[in-house]
């Protein structure tokens, strides 16, 4: 079976990944709410995952490293989200706010 030219090139997946990463970075840099910042981090992790899976698929798909990487990243993202949201709740109890620019005790 010869692959048909109708299948999108690897570049198409990489462009989607770049756009997702840039949007996630925007959320991290410009949003005030710490939960929205965390959403940006999740978007960036997903962009990296999409890259891993796309390179796995287009790189021969014989070895499974790409998918193993993506699986471990999903696991770590779950752990990270649980911990970060716990920290956000803890910060809210102490400062009565979740806006990252108002939690500035260590600012000189």
């Amino acid at each position, binding site marked *: 079976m010869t692959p048909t030219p109708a299948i999108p090139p690897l570049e*198409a997946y990489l462009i989607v990944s770049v756009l997702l990463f*840039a949007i996630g970075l925007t959320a991290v*840099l410009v949003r005030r709410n710490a939960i929205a910042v965390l959403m940006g981090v999740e978007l960036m992790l997903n962009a990296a995952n999409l890259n891993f899976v796309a390179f796995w698929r287009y790189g021969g798909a014989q070895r499974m490293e790409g998918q193993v990487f993506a699986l471990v990243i*999903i*696991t770590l993202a779950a752990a990270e989200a649980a911990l970060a949201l716990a920290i956000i709740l*803890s910060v809210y109890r102490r400062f009565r706010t979740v806006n990252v620019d108002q939690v500035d005790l260590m600012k000189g």
Partner: protein
Amino acid sequence: MIEALHSGSFWYPLAFIIFALGAVVPAVLVVASRNIIHSALWLLASLASIAGLYLLLNAELLAALQILVYCGGIMLLFLFAIMLTPGVGDPDVRVHNQGLFWGLLAALALAAVSLHLLREEDWSVVPAANLRDVTGRLADALVGQYALAFEAASVILLVAMIGAIVIVRTEPRE
């Protein structure tokens, strides 16, 4: 259905375009929404579309896990945290911080540089046809060659769970 998608009909590029737009457009709305609950729901749409992209890439197990873990677990955590904290959709509250201009500039610069580098390379690789038993081989790799990463992930999950409980625990009153 996946075989039909991979047989080179026009459905594959169409599905790719739908899922790619479904991943990128809601992601923009995550950043732009004033209401943080709307942001969370747009994030849900974006993550579900990425699961669709995984399906197109023959990563069926990852697509299922993406739905289960992200659209199920992580999204639930986000909604809980949003409801336990204030400032949902208050029109008087600024949603963007002081660094709006520089943040946008940095993200645009990153996207421009990355896309420029992408265009300079030759990516004309052709994906292997007739993938067989991807999930089975992934399982073999996970409990065989990469058993250490598998075990480490379980330890990390346990530590994160205990850590989250300790962090949000309220101090017993004297």
